[in-house]
């Protein structure tokens, strides 16, 4: 097996080394990759969507269709992990070592996380809201929000956390996020334009450019909600082996 693997790897390696011969110069601003589509985005995105962060503009508007499915992938992963792991009849007893009870044992950790979590969450909202102007956006915000819940679940325990944010709520939130995204797309459809054509949102009284900008914000919000819910849900399922009894 190992020899075959080595052979395959070497073959692929040789193929890829061959491919490099023909590459454009590295870091060349006028390589085809940099010279064909991207100037358009760089020049026009601010003008057309009022979003200075070009990545955000391309992500959520020019290639918003991709991003919708990216969010769907996340949703799909969440559902998959949940449907695979949770609440199934277990044949053998759980193979983990019993861990000592945690109550009262980690005051420092809990206090620190109490301080940290609000900061994280506010930062996440900042990242979301300022995704138009600075690095970040819905996805990053969602991950940070999810991480803040993970932190809580780590420092307290899983049950305490789940009492506040139950699995059903998580699921609903995750579906809700994608529905926000796809719903904005479908709204444009219903308003008579193409799917995800935010320009149609100008019926709400925005200029066309701002309609794009607000549309982007809307879908980023959707992304954030889904990502947050699924990231936490992934943690919950994987760390507890699907039993939701204890985390790490």
């Amino acid at each position, binding site marked *: 097996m190992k020899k075959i693997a080595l052979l395959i790897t070497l073959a692929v390696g040789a*193929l*890829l080394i*061959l*491919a*490099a*011969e*023909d*590459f*454009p110069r590295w870091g060349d601003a006028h*390589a*085809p*990759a*940099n*010279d*064909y*589509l*991207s100037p*358009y*985005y760089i020049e026009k995105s601010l003008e057309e969507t009022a979003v200075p962060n070009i990545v955000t503009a391309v992500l959520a*508007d*020019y*290639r*918003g*269709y*991709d991003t919708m*499915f*990216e969010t*769907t*992938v996340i*949703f*799909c*992963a969440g*559902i*998959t992990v*949940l*449907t*695979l792991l949770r*609440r*199934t009849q277990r044949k053998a007893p759980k193979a983990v070592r019993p861990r000592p009870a945690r109550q009262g044992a980690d005051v420092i950790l809990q206090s620190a996380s109490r301080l940290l979590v609000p900061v994280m969450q506010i930062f996440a909202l900042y990242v979301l809201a300022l995704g138009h102007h600075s690095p970040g956006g819905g996805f990053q915000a969602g991950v940070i929000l999810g991480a803040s819940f993970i932190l809580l679940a780590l420092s307290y325990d899983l049950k305490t956390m789940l009492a506040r944010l139950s699995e059903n709520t998580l*699921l*609903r939130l995750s*579906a*809700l996020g*994608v*529905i926000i995204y*796809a719903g904005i*797309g*479908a709204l444009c*459809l*219903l308003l*008579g*334009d*193409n*799917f*995800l*054509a*935010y*320009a149609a949102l100008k019926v709400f009284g925005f200029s066309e450019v701002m309609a794009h900008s607000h549309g982007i914000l809307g879908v980023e919000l959707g992304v954030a909600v889904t990502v947050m819910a699924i990231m936490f849900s992934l943690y919950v399922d994987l760390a507890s082996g699907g039993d939701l009894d204890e985390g790490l």
Partner: protein
Amino acid sequence: MTAAQFPILILIIPLLAAFAISLFGGRRDKLAYGLLLAAMSGSFYAALQTLLLVLETNIPIHYRLGGWAPPYGIELVIDHLNAMVLCLVSGCALLTAIYSLPTVRAEIPDRIHHYYTLYCLLVTGLAGMVATGDAFNLYVLLEISALSSYAMLARGRGNAYYATFKYIIMGTIGACFYLLGVGYLYIKTGTLNMADLFRLLAEEEMQQSITIRIGFILIMIGIWIKMAFFPLHGWLPNAYTRASTTTSCLIAPLMTKVSVYIMLRLMFSVFSVEFVYGVIPWHEQIVWLASLAIVAGSISALAQRNLKKMLTYIIVAEVGYMVGGAWLANESGLAGTVYHILSDALMTLALFMAVGAIIHKTGKSSFAAMEGIFRKMPVTSAVFVLGGFAIIGIPPTCGFFSKWYLIRGGIETGQWLFVGALLFSSLINAIIFFRLIERAYFGDLSGHGHGPLPERDEAPAVMLVPMVVTAAALVIIGLYTSEIIGRIVLWTIPAGL
């Protein structure tokens, strides 16, 4: 909304239904089932309308997502080929959805609504892959369909996890190779839109570029892994065999066929005929490999004693048919491949449905389940027989006509090995199916010849209706071959072939 919106509706309806099912389906299974049916019917209707539109105008439909003009935005491009495949995907999904009710209840212990959610997502992914005109978007949708199929396969009967894990590893390698290949194309051309790529790659400099060639090879290897082309097929049989009935009915006919479609799409809409057959000098060797795939798949199928596993090896052989046909580099071969996408999907669907019904009723999946089935389940066995005839290639089922074109293609280019492999696999299939039909017809002969006859115990009507529709489609499509070839398939033959 006007008729122009139909292409996106094919995708959006199942997508939204997936979320709706995950939100509301948990209360009652019936509701989830109802939503699923509604979504699949809607999607199928939209696909049908799109097909009619394409047939009416004979011009590809371009749908700009977000209103952005390609290549800056993403577009859906629906021409004859993918209009047909879209109809096939949504049609098969609808039939399987109707069929699913009894088996899902029996095989999926809990969280049926999540299962149906994944079902919708898988259909979205498949339809999206077929409809898209953007190379990177294809990757994203490939991953959606892959992820949802991992989940559906893992929720199989018994121990499907290890098989699924292997599939995850192989699937990821395949998808990543594809992504890497697209990266090579991007680095040389700077675009991701397929039509744009086609335009740019037609230039002389690009034709000579080694990067582009290696990008092409990587993409092909990636897609071949996904479609389980010999010798990259190792993951498929175990994963599909252990899947639950509905899962295999949905995935087995569609997954490989959509991959074949993608191969054709990339070969002729991103690269060009001159590039694929001229610049890459290996099309003969690939046909040999395909012949090998056919022979190996058929022989492995012959060796099986489990109904579903046997069918999965037949799929491996059928993939060889299609890859071989596409690489024969002539019109007949390519027409045969396109037509075979249609007919093979339907015949695999019919067979998997029939076998699923038999397993559902008898509880066995070995060949012993077939004993006396003719008397017990006459309709199911009739569907099985028809499906078998189609696989063997007996006229007037559609399987005969696709084979007709493939063999003709082989003869025209003098690829006798391929012709021989096709005929060989027909014969092997005949042996496989008549062995089963014999069991079904004679029952258990080892005991007392005419013992008490088994009671009639047919599958419920929800399962029978889609089965019969599929089986009828096999013959109807066979009889309308000329129509289909003339109005759809010949339009898909790229210029210059």
